């Protein structure tokens, strides 16, 4: 298989993986799947497994919540696997570049959510005005998914086709502070999502529970499951001891 075909196939798979991550979420977009599949395409399944497992473990605890937009695991695994197989420089360096590349995916997603999809959403709104069912589906599903080819498929194709040195050159061209800055910013934008959720709450008088949840997580280091259990206690107690009592 020529490199062109290989690069095209990898780019196609990445595009499909992103469509999955925006729809059914069978999770073929995770490193543990992307690595082996790209390995298969590139003719070295073993390296595909090695890179996939390593990147998956790096991203194991990274959780996607609200507006928080963590480094992207999909493109980075695809490119890292490609580089490892083509460059032959061992998986270590490949995985290292993967982390750097993950910022590119992160930038693409930020761009998608803040510009492209805002545009399409307004087109959905226009379709609603005209009660145009096909317009809704076209602008909510088909066109945004087509854009995945551009946002995620194209960079992948270029990286594989032009090779490790090229990728490295691009990464080197980005100042370190930008890369760190994007990840620092990425760690902060969860605040906007949480603020949106908070602003959607009608019954403002329950804010003490916000402080309660914060105290448990902040001072006692409670994890997300524990916080969910605390929420269950709060809801149940209010239900039984305040709401239900009122009924009598």
């Amino acid at each position: 298989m020529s490199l062109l075909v290989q690069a095209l196939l990898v780019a196609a798979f990445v595009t499909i993986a992103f469509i999955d991550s925006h729809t059914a979420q069978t999770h073929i977009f995770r490193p543990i799947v992307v690595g082996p599949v790209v390995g298969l395409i590139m003719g070295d399944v073993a390296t595909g497994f090695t890179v996939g497992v390593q990147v998956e473990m790096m991203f194991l605890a990274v959780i996607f919540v609200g507006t928080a937009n963590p480094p992207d695991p999909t493109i980075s695994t695809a490119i890292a696997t490609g580089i490892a197989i083509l460059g032959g420089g061992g998986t270590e360096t490949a995985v290292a570049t993967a982390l750097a590349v993950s910022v590119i995916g992160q930038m693409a997603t930020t761009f998608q959510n803040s510009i492209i999809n805002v545009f399409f959403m307004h087109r959905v709104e226009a379709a609603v005005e005209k009660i145009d069912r096909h317009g809704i589906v076209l602008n909510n599903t088909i066109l945004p998914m087509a854009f995945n080819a551009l946002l995620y498929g194209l960079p992948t194709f270029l990286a594989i086709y032009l090779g490790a040195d090229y990728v490295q050159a691009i990464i080197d061209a980005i100042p370190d502070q930008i890369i760190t800055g994007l990840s620092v910013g990425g760690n902060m934008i969860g605040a906007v999502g949480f603020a949106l959720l908070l602003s959607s709450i009608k019954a403002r008088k329950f804010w003490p529970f916000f402080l309660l949840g914060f105290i448990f997580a902040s001072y006692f280091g409670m994890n997300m499951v524990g916080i969910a259990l605390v929420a269950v206690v709060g809801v149940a107690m209010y239900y039984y001891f305040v709401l239900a009592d009122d009924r009598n």
Partner: protein
Amino acid sequence: MSDQVTTSEVQAEETPKLTNKELWKVFRNQLTIRCANNYERQQNAGFTQAMMPVVEKYYDDPEEKREAYERHMEYFLTNDITSAIPVGVAAAMEERYATQRDIDPDSINAVKTALMGPLAGIGDSLLNGTARPILAGLAISFIQAGLGWFGVLFFVIGMSIVSLGVRYFGVFQGYKQGVKLVAKIQSSGLIDKISDLAAIAAYTIVGGFIPGLVIINIPIEIGSGDSVLNIQQTLDGLVPGLLGVLYTLLMYVLITKKKISAVKLILITMVIGIAGVYLGILG
């Protein structure tokens, strides 16, 4: 009251119900909830598409149809997978409103909004934070044990079951519970009670998630030698995670009081991150 309920239930029986086939249509459209995910109103377009089979079935008058669609173009954000539950509930409520006119259409968005927070928190912690790492961990182990593609398949099938299973449950059960809900909705303050309980869950969860998910670190150290003052350590010694919660509250004020859009705030935040790193005050 029990008489009343019975009456409502009788009426409910008379309502033309969504068939299984139609609910499967809702299920398929719910899969697109995140396609046009955007920082302005998040999953609103997706929710609207999910409602299409219901709106098309129950509304004939174009004006009413448009109003129904517009309703769901409002801001909506929750976990992609658990969002199937409010989709199911909203289907039941649209059905009721369209056929009986005995509920307030505003209550549809009220219930949706109430469910957003709790379902985001519970979905993210149990699906993203629990099920995914466990299945991935097992898959990795299988691969390490030499089972190769079996591990990959195990992961994909496992996650498909989780993702599609919860959505199936969400649409079908959400619809069923929604039907029960609308039958009782005239009873005093039910919507308020749902909002109250949802507010408790949402506040607790958002407050509790912030320290782990909104992370701001000031890497400045003043002085040298034995008496170095590490600002971040000092802050953590007072209130761990203080900066993250303060930044969230700032965003909250900017959104609610200053009406600044989320898109702008996200771009500003990224700029602050980069600028902070350049200035050496964030990192």
